[in-house]
C-alpha cells in the first residue's frame, strides 16, 4: 500500500514539530525517517499511524484519504521503541491479542489463531518462548515479539518507532539485518524512525532526512550519502571536518594550502569546505606545496580503522582523519610528528546554506 503525505503541519503549543511535510512512499518500500531528536520524525510516524492528528494536511493510503480514519481502521502495525508489550500476558497471548479481540464475525477460530501465532513466532525465531511473560525476555527478544504482535493483524503498513533504539550495539546490528531480510520476505510497506544514520543507510530502500520539522532530503542511501543536499545532511550522515577559506580559480585556498576543486569555477571570498575524515590523506612530505601542515595530536585505534587527530600548523583548529589500519602501519605515525594533509575531496555549500548549518 502506498502512502502519500501532503502538506502536513503539527504544533504542540508554541512548538512547531512539523512544518509542511510532503512525502510519497511507494508500496512495498522500506523507508527510514532519519533525523536528530526533536526533528519531528516520531510525530510524523504517529500521524501516519493515526495516533496523532495533524493540524493541516492530508494522509492518503493507496490514493484514498485516510486523514480522518481512526487508527483502528487504518490497518497499520506499530512497533514501539520500548516494545509496549502487555506485561500481564504471555508472549503467545500478546501476539494473539489483536486477533482475539476482533468482533466475532472476523475473529478466526481458536485453532487458526494458534496456528498463526506459531507461524509468527517461527518467523521471529522465538517459538520456544511462547509461554514466557515479557519481563522474562531480553530486549532484543521483546522487540521481535512486539514485531510479531504488530504483524499478527496482517497490517497493510508497518510502522516502527526507533525499534532498536533501546538495544545494545551488537543486538541492534543483528536485528536490523534481520529486519531487512524480513522485509524482503513480506514486502509490506514499512516506515521506520531512527536517529542512527548507519542504521538508516544499511536497512532502508530510501532515506528521508528530517531537520527541525522539515524534510531536508529524500533519496536512496547512496544518493543522500554521496550527494547530500545541504550541510545539515552532510554533517548528519557522518563525521565532518570544516575548513574556512576562499575559492579562487577553481582552487580551494585554506590557509597556505591549495586544493584543486573538481567542479567549481569562479571565486568566493568566504567559503566553508567540508571533508569526511576518510577523505583526507596524511602525507610525509609536501611535494606540490599544496598540502596543509599539521602535527599529530592524538591517535585512537578503532578496530579496523585508526582515527588520527591533528592540529593545523596555522592554528585554525583541528582535523580528524580516519585511515585503514594497514595504511596507518605503513606510514608509522607518532604523536607530535609534523605531517601534511591533503583532502582528496572537498565539498562546498553556498554561503547561505552554511550559515544555516552553523545555526542549527
Amino acid at each position, binding site marked *: 500500500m502506498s502512502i502519500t503525505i501532503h502538506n502536513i503541519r503539527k504544533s504542540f503549543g*508554541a512548538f512547531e514539530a512539523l512544518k509542511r511535510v510532503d512525502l510519497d512512499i511507494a508500496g512495498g518500500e522500506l523507508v527510514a525517517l532519519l533525523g536528530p531528536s526533536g526533528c519531528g520524525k516520531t510525530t510524523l510516524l*504517529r500521524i501516519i*499511524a493515526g*495516533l496523532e492528528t495533524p493540524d493541516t494536511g492530508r494522509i492518503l493510503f493507496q490514493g484514498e484519504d485516510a486523514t480522518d480514519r481512526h*487508527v*483502528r*481502521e487504518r*490497518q*497499520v*502495525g*506499530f512497533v*514501539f*521503541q*520500548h516494545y*509496549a*508489550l*502487555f*506485561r500481564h500476558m504471555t508472549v503467545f497471548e500478546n501476539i494473539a*491479542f*489483536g486477533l482475539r*479481540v*476482533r*468482533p*466475532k464475525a472476523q475473529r478466526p477460530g481458536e485453532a487458526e489463531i494458534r496456528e498463526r501465532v506459531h507461524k509468527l513466532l517461527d518467523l521471529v525465531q522465538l517459538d520456544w518462548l511462547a509461554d514466557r511473560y515479557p519481563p522474562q525476555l531480553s530486549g532484543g527478544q521483546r522487540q521481535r515479539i512486539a514485531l510479531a*504482535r*504488530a504483524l499478527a*493483524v496482517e497490517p497493510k503498513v508497518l510502522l516502527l518507532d526507533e525499534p532498536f533504539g533501546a538495544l545494545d550495539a551488537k543486538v541492534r546490528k543483528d536485528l536490523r539485518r534481520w529486519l531487512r531480510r524480513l522485509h524482503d520476505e513480506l514486502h509490506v510497506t514499512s516506515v521506520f524512525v531512527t536517529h542512527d544514520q548507519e542504521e538508516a543507510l544499511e536497512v532502508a530502500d530510501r532515506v528521508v532526512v528530517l531537520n527541525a520539522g522539515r524534510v531536508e532530503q529524500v533519496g536512496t542511501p547512496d544518493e543522500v550519502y554521496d550527494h547530500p543536499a545541504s550541510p545539515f545532511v552532510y554533517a548528519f550522515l557522518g563525521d565532518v571536518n570544516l575548513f*574556512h577559506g576562499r575559492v579562487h580559480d577553481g582552487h580551494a585556498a585554506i590557509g597556505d594550502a591549495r586544493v584543486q576543486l573538481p567542479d567549481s569555477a569562479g571565486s568566493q571570498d*568566504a567559503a*566553508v569546505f567540508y571533508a569526511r575524515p576518510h577523505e583526507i590523506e596524511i602525507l610525509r612530505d609536501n611535494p606540490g606545496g599544496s598540502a596543509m601542515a599539521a602535527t599529530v*595530536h*592524538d591517535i585512537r585505534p578503532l578496530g579496523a580503522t585508526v582515527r588520527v*587527530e591533528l*592540529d593545523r600548523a*596555522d*592554528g*585554525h*583548529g*583541528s582535523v580528524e582523519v580516519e585511515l585503514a589500519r594497514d595504511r596507518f602501519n605503513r606510514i608509522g605515525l607518532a604523536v607530535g610528528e609534523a605531517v601534511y594533509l591533503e583532502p582528496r575531496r572537498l565539498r562546498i555549500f553556498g*554561503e547561505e546554506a*552554511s*550559515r544555516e548549518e*552553523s*545555526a*542549527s
Partner: protein
Amino acid sequence: MSAPPPPVGTDAFCSLDAGPEGAALSLRGAWTLANLAALRDALARLPIDPGAPLTVDGAALDALDSAGANRLIAHLDGLGLRFPRLRLSGFGAQGMALLHLVAGRHALPATAPLARRGFGQAIGWHVMRVGHATLSILTFIGQTGQAFAQLLRRPGLFRAREFFVQLEMVGLRAVPIVMLMSYLIGIVIAYLLGLQAKKYGANVFVVDGVGLAITRELAPLMTAVIVAGRSGAAFTAHLGAMKVNQEIDAIASLGLSPWQVLVLPRLLALVLLMPLLTAVADIAGILGAAQVASLHLGVTPHTFFDRLQDVLSTDTVLFGLMKTPVFALAIALIACHNGFSVARDARSVGLRTTATVVRSIVAVILIDSAFAVAYPELM
C-alpha cells in the same frame, strides 16, 4: 574596513585589535567559571563591531571551560556574530570542540523563559487551566459514553475477562479493609452517642442514631473513600504506567478501543460492586456498634437488633446504597481520565495518582451533599 588604531580595548582577559581581515579578539588568562563575572564585564567593555567579521584567537589562553566558552559565544551571539563570520583560531582541538558544542546549543531555538505572572495574568492563566481541565474531563466523559453506547449495540465487544479481573481486584480484595474500617467506625459512633445517651439514661436510643448514621451516611462515605484510595489510585497508576509504556497506543494500533479494553470494564466493575461493598460495610458497622452497646451501654444484642428492626426503615438503607453507584461512576471516571492524561514520564504517574485520590474524595463528598439536600424529594 576603516578600523580605529589598535589596540582599541585591552583587559586582563582579552584585547581587541584591528587586523587585515576584520577585527581580531585575543583571549588571555583563565576563561573559567571562577572568573565568570570579570569575563562578562571584560566582554561588555569591548567595542566589537557586529557588522564586520571577527577572528577570535585563543592561543594565549591558560584555561577554557564550558562556562567561559558559553560566556564568549553568548556575548558574540547577542551581537549577531556567528559562524562563518566568526572565526576561531589557536584554540586547540578540545577548545574548538567545546566552542562548537556551545555554539550549537546557542543556535537552538530558545524555549520561552518562565515569566513571572502578574496578578491579572495569574487569574487569566488559572481560568484557562481550569477551562482546559474541564474540557478535557468532559471530552473523556463523552468518549466513555460513546464507548458505552457502542457496547450496548454490540455486546460482543465486552471484555469479560478484564471485567472479572477487576471484580476481584475492586470487590473481593477490598472486603476485609472495608469491613474493618466500618466496624471501627461503628464502635466509635456507638461510643460517642452512648456517652450522650447515658447522661439521660436513654441508652437504647443509641440504636436509632447508630442505625441511621451508619446506613445513610457513614458506610457509603467510608466505602467510597476507601475505594477512591484503593481502586481509584490503582486505576490511575495502572493506566498511567500503560500510557508511559505506550501500551495504550499499542492497543489502539491493534484496532481496539482503549475505552472498551480498559475503561469500561473498570467502570462497570466499580459501579456494580460499590453497593455490595457498602452493604458489607453497613453490616460490619452495625456489628461494631452492637458490640459496644452490649459491653458498655448495657443494651443486649437481642434488644439492639429488636430496636434496630423497629426504627431503621428500608428507605434509609436503600437511600444509602442508592448513592454509591454514583460515587463509583465519579471515582472511575476521574481515575481513568487521570490515568489517560499521564504525560510520558514516570513522575507524572505519581502526580496523577495523588490527584485522583484528592479529586475523587472531593467529588464523592460533593455528590453526597447533593444527595443529602435532595433526600426529601427522593424518599
